[in-house]
C-alpha cells in the first residue's frame, strides 16, 4: 500500500539545508526530467530539417556541431541523461522493494558515477572539427 508524502514546496529556499539525500534525489530527478522532455521536443525540431532534404539536414547538424557552446551543452545533456538513468534504476529498485536501506548510498553512488562518466566523456564530446 502506498503512502502519500507531503514534500512541501521546493521553492521555499530556507528549507534546502534540511533536505535529506532522498529529497535531493527527488529534486534532481524532477529537474533532469524537465530538461530531457524539453530536449526531446527540441531534438525532433532540429531533426525535422531532414524533411527539407539531405543537404539542409547535414549542414544544420554539422553547423551546430561546429559551435563550441553546443559541445558544452551536449556534455550537460549527457550529465542530465546519465543521472536520470542511474537514479531511475535506483527508483525502480525502490519500487521493487530492493535495497531500501541503501537508498542514500545508492543516490550518492549515482552522483559519483554520473560525474565520472561525464568527466571521462569530455574529450570525446569536444573532439572533432570545430568552427
Amino acid at each position: 500500500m502506498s503512502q502519500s508524502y507531503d514534500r512541501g514546496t521546493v521553492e521555499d529556499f530556507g528549507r534546502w539545508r534540511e533536505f535529506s539525500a532522498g529529497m535531493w534525489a527527488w529534486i534532481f530527478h524532477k529537474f533532469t526530467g524537465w530538461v530531457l522532455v524539453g530536449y526531446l521536443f527540441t531534438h525532433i525540431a532540429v531533426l525535422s530539417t531532414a524533411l527539407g532534404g539531405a543537404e539542409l539536414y547535414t549542414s544544420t547538424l554539422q553547423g551546430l556541431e561546429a559551435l563550441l557552446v553546443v559541445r558544452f551543452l551536449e556534455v550537460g545533456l549527457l550529465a542530465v541523461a546519465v543521472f536520470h538513468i542511474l537514479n531511475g534504476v535506483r527508483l525502480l529498485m525502490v519500487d521493487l522493494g530492493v535495497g531500501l536501506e541503501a537508498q542514500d548510498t545508492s543516490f550518492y553512488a549515482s552522483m559519483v558515477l554520473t560525474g565520472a562518466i561525464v568527466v571521462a566523456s569530455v574529450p570525446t564530446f569536444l573532439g572533432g572539427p570545430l568552427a
Partner: protein
Amino acid sequence: MAKHYSSFERGGRRWLLQRLTAVFLIGVLAFHFLLLHFANHAANITFAGTQARMSQIGYFATMWLFLVTATFHGVNGVYNALINQGIEGTRKTAVKWVLVAASLLLIAQGTRVALAMNGFLQ
C-alpha cells in the same frame, strides 16, 4: 526499516507504463548516446549515414519505439509533476488534454522525420 514513499497511484495503468517505458528507455537512451556520440561522432553525422542506419528495419523500429516511449514517459512525467504541485479540477483536465495533443503532434512529426530519414518520404 526504511519507509516506502511514492507520489504515484500504485497499481494504476499510467504508474505501470511509466515504469515499463523506463526500463526500455534505460537501454535505448544509453545505446543512442553510445552510437551517435562515441561509435560515430556527432560532428561527422551526414544524411547519408542517418539514412543507412534508418534503412535497417530493426534500427528504424527501435528508434520509432524510442520516440513513442520517450514521449509518453516525458509527458506523463510532466503531468505527474504538475499533479504533485497540486493542480486539480478544470486546470488538471486542460493540462491533460494540452499534453495529450502535444504528445500526438510530437509523435506525428517524429514519424514524418523518421520516414524522411529512411527515404520513404523523399
